[in-house]
């Protein structure tokens, strides 16, 4: 791909963004109802899909096939134009798709990948009340009964379960082997009888994650993905696989709109007319964050390129996740400090965005959505230490 082709692609994306990014979405999505949020997300997804920008990372035959350098440009431009994110379809286009592509039968792929493009939504049902960081301790049990598996148990923190059509479900199929060896991976229809979803109110006041109660839910054996009792390996593989690309988008957003908001906040005159940005210490901290963002963005691009070349190291995704989430936290914390009391009175933030919206207090509280899930920062550091640096593992049982 030559530089001029890339520049042309950038122009095309720019023109598309100017024509399609809804100008007022931040206003209309602030205080939107659930129904309005879902309708908006569905519409935005279809607009992106029509141009081939919804799933650039999928194989061409399923509607993707945009090469990596163009994907980088695409995410840069979407971020620069402050486009809404595909938050609702996130698990569907990333986790579900990666899992299907890695281990799905032809039938499973044909059934779901086109459906995802038509709007099928997915939830990830991994965590349980007693299985968070130690995910392999999960207890939800699936027992074979004729042509079905019968599943009973409880999942928790399942983001978007209230909207989901399908669930990526991990359940124990063999209780008598070491815990990682008896887990299977299922595609579960959320309309099956025996499923109850209860939204949980979260720290920001919203309810995006849910409990899922499973009572004798029947899953056809054809919906097992990968081999029985091999679910753990598949989950590990597909969890890490997509991290590069999703992080690229998030890093670009943090570096564009996210940082712009911070600078704007620092330029707002305070009660005595003084601007925070004119304070040398504030300016220094802003510059420090800009430098960190430059490093993060370069790191993400590097990861994506190595991902494409099949040269990703065992802890690379953890490095990016850890750095992104803690930088997000530092930035939003700084925003809270600068915005002062007026910022405390900003009670709503727009939906459909990222974790940075300029509603600093809510953004800061919301930043724990990154340092806790998907392997907490502590877990990431352990992964980096053990798999990245080869340090000795904790003794078992310690």
């Amino acid at each position: 791909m030559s530089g001029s082709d890339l520049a042309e692609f950038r122009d095309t994306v720019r023109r598309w963004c100017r024509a399609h990014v809804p100008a007022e979405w931040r206003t209309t999505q602030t205080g939107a109802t659930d129904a309005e949020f879902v309708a908006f997300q569905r519409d935005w997804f279809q607009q992106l899909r029509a141009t081939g920008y919804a799933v650039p990372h999928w194989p061409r035959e399923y509607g993707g096939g945009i090469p990596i350098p163009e994907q980088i440009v695409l995410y840069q431009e979407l971020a620069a134009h402050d486009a809404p994110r595909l938050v609702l379809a996130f698990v569907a286009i990333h986790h579900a798709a990666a899992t299907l592509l890695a281990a799905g039968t032809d039938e499973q792929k044909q059934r779901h990948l086109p459906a995802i493009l038509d709007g099928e939504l997915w939830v990830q049902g991994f965590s349980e009340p007693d299985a968070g960081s130690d995910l392999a301790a999960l207890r939800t049990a699936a027992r074979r009964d004729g042509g079905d598996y019968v599943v009973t148990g409880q999942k928790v923190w399942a983001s978007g379960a209230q909207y989901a059509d399908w669930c990526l479900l991990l359940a124990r199929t063999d209780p008598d082997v070491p815990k990682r060896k008896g887990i299977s991976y299922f595609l579960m229809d959320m309309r099956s009888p025996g499923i109850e979803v209860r939204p949980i109110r979260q720290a920001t006041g919203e309810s995006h994650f849910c409990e899922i109660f499973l009572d004798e839910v029947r899953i056809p054996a054809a919906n097992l993905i990968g081999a029985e009792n091999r679910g753990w390996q598949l989950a590990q593989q597909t969890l890490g696989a997509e991290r590069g690309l999703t992080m690229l988008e998030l890093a670009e957003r943090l570096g564009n709109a996210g940082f712009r908001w911070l600078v704007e906040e620092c330029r707002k005159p305070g009660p005595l007319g003084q601007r925070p940005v004119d304070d040398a210490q504030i300016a220094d901290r802003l510059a420090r964050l800009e430098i960190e963002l430059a490093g993060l963005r370069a790191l993400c691009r590097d990861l994506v390129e190595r991902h494409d070349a099949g040269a990703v190291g065992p802890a690379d995704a953890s490095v990016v996740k850890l750095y992104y989430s803690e930088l997000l936290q530092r930035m939003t914390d700084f925003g809270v400090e600068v915005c002062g009391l007026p910022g405390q009175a900003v009670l709503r933030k727009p939906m459909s965005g990222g974790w940075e919206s300029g509603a600093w207090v809510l953004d800061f509280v919301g930043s724990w959505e990154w340092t806790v899930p998907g392997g907490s920062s502590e877990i990431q550091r352990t992964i980096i230490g053990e798999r990245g640096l080869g340090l000795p593992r904790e003794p078992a049982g310690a």
Partner: protein
Amino acid sequence: MSGEFGEFHDELRTVARDLLGKTGADGVDWPLLVRAGWTGLEVPEEYEGTAATFTEVAILLEEIGRAAARTAYPSVAAGVGALSALEPDARRDTVLRETVAGTTIPVAVLGGDMVPAAGGETACAGTGGIVPTFLLTETIEGFRLSGSADFVPDAPVATTLLIPARAPGGSVRLVFVEPGAGGLRIAERQVVDATRSLGRVEAHEVSVAAESIRPFRSDIRDGLRVLYDRAALAVACDSLGIAASMLDATVEYARVRTQFDRPIGSFQAVKHACADMFVELTIARRLVSGALAADGTADRSRAVSAAKSFTGEAGVRIAGKAMQLHGGIGYTWESGIHRYLKRATLNRALFGAPADHRRVLADRYRAG
């Protein structure tokens, strides 16, 4: 990076590590380094060089930091940069050839206490941009050079000084001066870091021949700034090497040192500290590559400032953590960690402290 390039870089790195590994406290053997082609690495083939780029030189600079080696090579690399930024002529070409051959050690006289300019202010003068601290005047007998620069890396070992000076008329020129010239004084500057040689260069009415006063190439816009950025980036490479070596040493130690019947690396507090060192080093590496890639673009200075300030701090923090995680051994003279820690603190201060570089970046936020 293409595969071929990658292999060349790996080889360069291995050779460098090998060569530097043989180094004692007295420093790197200059003839050995010359034979290895280091002084000609970035020099065009017509002057007997290898015609590689600063990216390759940067690998050597990082390895020198990794070894905390005592050598004038970083300064000579800067000197080669300065020579290459000049219009070719007989004098310049000779010095360039001699540098490749190892018979001349050219050092660009850049004060290590120079800071990048923000909003027209500089530590050296008040006229905006990086400005020379030396002045050329013209008298009936010829040209005279006066001025001074402090904390100039490797000035005490230079055989040719390339002194940036403001010429009559206001333009900036590089002046070739021999260390023995009348009116020139080079005083060694003792610093805590024993792996470096720094000097204060003072010129009092040094008379210079017109041929020794050279203009920058016409395609180079702010020549002095280019040299300054390069010097700052070279220091960032050195800090990167320091950080990498301190992380390696710490990880190695944490694997084998046992306490409470366990390797200390299996304690989460230790493991997580190592993970943080690694993450910080990774970001520093990306910023340095970014600055190397920005060479010749409008973003160069900003990318260098980002790399220099981040890496300078990372170097100190990582070397400090290394000392901590080595326990009592780390605090001994013998462990050698102190050499890295001291060098890292010098690096952080050299050619602009982190906050100086951030001030340049921050200037843009105020507008609007």
